[in-house]
């Protein structure tokens, strides 16, 4: 990991530990204000991590910010930090004013209804100031202030449908950003899920070592050990998948596809084992595991699930005609690691 990434991870960890505690997360999921948390993120410069230095940002690359995105998942951060970072960088690239506040990315194309605009089930739609969306064949920023916000109804979820009646305040001009927005949303979601999975693994190992039954910690039982080993394997695979995705440009749909597919598949196993080992306490609202596993379940279905991205990868591979190892090498080629200072 590069030194820049180390520094970022350290300061993000400190900020989240102070301002995104499990209690803070629960409050924001309940509908209370997220202003203070976002202010802290913006003041620390995290939102502008990917914005070029010439535009006032840190000019980092995807690999540099990987750990920050993982931490967002580990803390179940109730704000679309990954989406905001990508959106602000894209705005800078297009010469647009950087949008204020948290920025969501819609994963469905806008629906037009009676002159209004509807964005269905926007991830973090309940906690954003702006949304990147495809409206009438263009990629735009929409201001959330003018919209009616209806939360999805899934318990604790920050997904929301945003409805604008009449003209939505849309700032066009994102088409030049060379971003595959669905892939970008998929990638930042995959990275968040990795952080949640790593924290879930940590909690699971701790629980297995502490919970005593039959006179010994349950982690001494082979059946428990084997499940947790499988969980760890999936976490390692997921982290590598997301790391590869982040090491490629945001126009590189294939690496993002690999990330979302592999991470989504891993998440199902990881959530299941975490809950199996924790027993009944893991299903309670009071215990923090649910903050992590709810992110995993929701993340699987956002920006396309495993089947969607597998289809895209498969179509491309069958059309390409190259042997499988060559295809795989092509997805990996040119990856950019975190910078050393």
């Amino acid at each position, binding site marked *: *990991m590069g030194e820049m990434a180390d520094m970022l991870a350290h300061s993000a960890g400190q900020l989240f530990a102070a301002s995104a505690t499990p209690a803070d997360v629960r409050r924001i999921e309940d509908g209370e204000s997220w202003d203070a948390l976002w202010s802290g993120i913006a003041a620390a410069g995290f939102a502008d991590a990917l914005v070029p230095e010439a535009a006032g940002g840190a000019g980092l690359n995807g*690999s540099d910010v990987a750990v920050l995105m993982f931490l967002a998942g580990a803390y179940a951060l109730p704000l679309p930090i990954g989406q905001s970072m990508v959106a602000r960088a894209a705005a800078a690239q297009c010469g647009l004013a950087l949008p204020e506040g948290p920025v969501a990315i819609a994963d469905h194309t806008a629906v037009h209804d009676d002159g209004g605009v509807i964005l269905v089930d926007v991830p973090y739609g309940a906690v954003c100031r702006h949304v990147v969306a495809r409206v009438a064949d263009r990629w735009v920023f929409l201001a959330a202030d003018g919209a009616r916000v209806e939360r999805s109804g899934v318990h604790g979820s920050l997904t929301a449908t945003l409805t604008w009646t009449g003209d939505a305040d849309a700032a066009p001009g994102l088409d030049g950003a060379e971003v595959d927005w669905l892939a970008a949303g998929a990638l930042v979601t995959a990275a968040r899920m990795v952080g949640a999975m790593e924290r879930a693994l940590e909690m699971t*190992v701790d629980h*297995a*070592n502490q919970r005593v039954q039959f006179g010994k910690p349950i*982690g*001494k039982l*082979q059946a*428990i*050990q*084997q499940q*947790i*080993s*499988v969980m*760890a*394997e999936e976490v*390692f*695979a997921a*982290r*590598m*998948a997301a*790391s*590869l995705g982040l*090491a490629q440009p945001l126009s590189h749909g294939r690496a993002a*596809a*690999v990330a979302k*597919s*592999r991470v989504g*598949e891993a998440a199902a196993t990881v959530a299941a084992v975490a809950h199996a080992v924790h027993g009944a306490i893991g299903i309670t609202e009071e215990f923090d595991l649910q903050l992590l596993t709810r992110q995993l379940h929701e993340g699987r279905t956002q920006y396309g699930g*495993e*089947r969607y*991205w*597998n*289809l*895209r*990868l*498969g*179509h491309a*591979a*069958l059309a390409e*005609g190259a*042997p*499988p*190892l060559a*295809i*795989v*090498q092509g*997805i*990996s080629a040119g*990856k950019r*690691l975190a910078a050393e200072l």
Partner: protein
Amino acid sequence: MIAALPLSVIPDTDEALRAEVRTFARDAVKDVAPEVRARSWMGFSPEFSRALAARGWLGLSIRKEYGGQEAGYFRRFVIVEELLAAGAPVSAHWIADRQSGPLIQKFGTEAQKLHYLPPICRGESYFCIGMSEPNAGSDLASVRTRAERVDAGWRLNGQKIWTTNAPHSHYMIALVRTSGTAADRHKGLSQFIVDLKAPGVTIRAIRDLAGDAHFSEVFFDNVELPEDALIGEEGSGWEQVTAELAFERSGPERILTSIVLLEAWLDWLRQGAAADPADTALAGRMLAHLTVLRELAIAVTGKLAAGESPIVEAALVKDLGVTFEQTLPTLIADAIAADPQRPVPAPLRNTTAFVAQVAPSYSLRGGTREILRGMIARGLGLR
């Protein structure tokens, strides 16, 4: 403890060799049926091994003074990837190149290194692994083959089993007991380089369920070994074997054993009319898994190249890799049987059948799944 596996890059100087190796390997097997190439690294050809050596593609991690290339782990990774993807016949030199040579370089005396390493690097000297016994598989520390000191050296009695390639090998590196009893577990074990032509050595091939005879039983009946047959320290056999297994478990081979089958299936999909979405999604899923597994294998190689000993990490990647390798024939079998009206070409049918038959062996050799998962659990701090 288990350390993170960071995304790693293969150095450009090693990547540069890839195209040449790919062309050479694919040329060498262009008339060989996929079901034969699917034997993967079990294909035996001394000519091919010597040809690789002549190009400087063997002995990559062996120092030049011993006839090696001194080119490091990434060089070997690139070369092996391309050889395995083509299904080239690498088995003659395989074990010597992958682990026996590096083991001799790590633990051998100068005389042993000068004697054994150059012919290994020339692709002329073939080794097999003497670990498992009929009563000592996963419980390797309970081996009973014994070497006793005699005037001129040692006397060896016992047997080994599941020894891949023994009939074709010149030497075996065997884990044996030199002091104490099985109750002493890891203490009192040593490794010997056994000349398989020595009197008292009997090799009996074992036919497998696919009709091949890749592995064997090897019997030792009062085999006389010279003093310098001992490799490393007497009593350090367990530590040495652990290091040897790290060599064995790292590298791209652990994720590429089924790739000839995957390629054959993709080619068949490409020939037909537009592929069924289920097949397309399955192809994508497999490529996603393979992409990630390869990055993990590259990361393990990076740790070896940095002089680390990624024992648990290599076990983790091996277990993930073999799970993928074993799932592949199961899923492809279902895919090719999805339309009873569409006949399957014999090469694809036979390759699928062969890989399905032998796939259980992938998670048995080099440490069973259950053992590896126990190692991972220990690395996580659960044991």
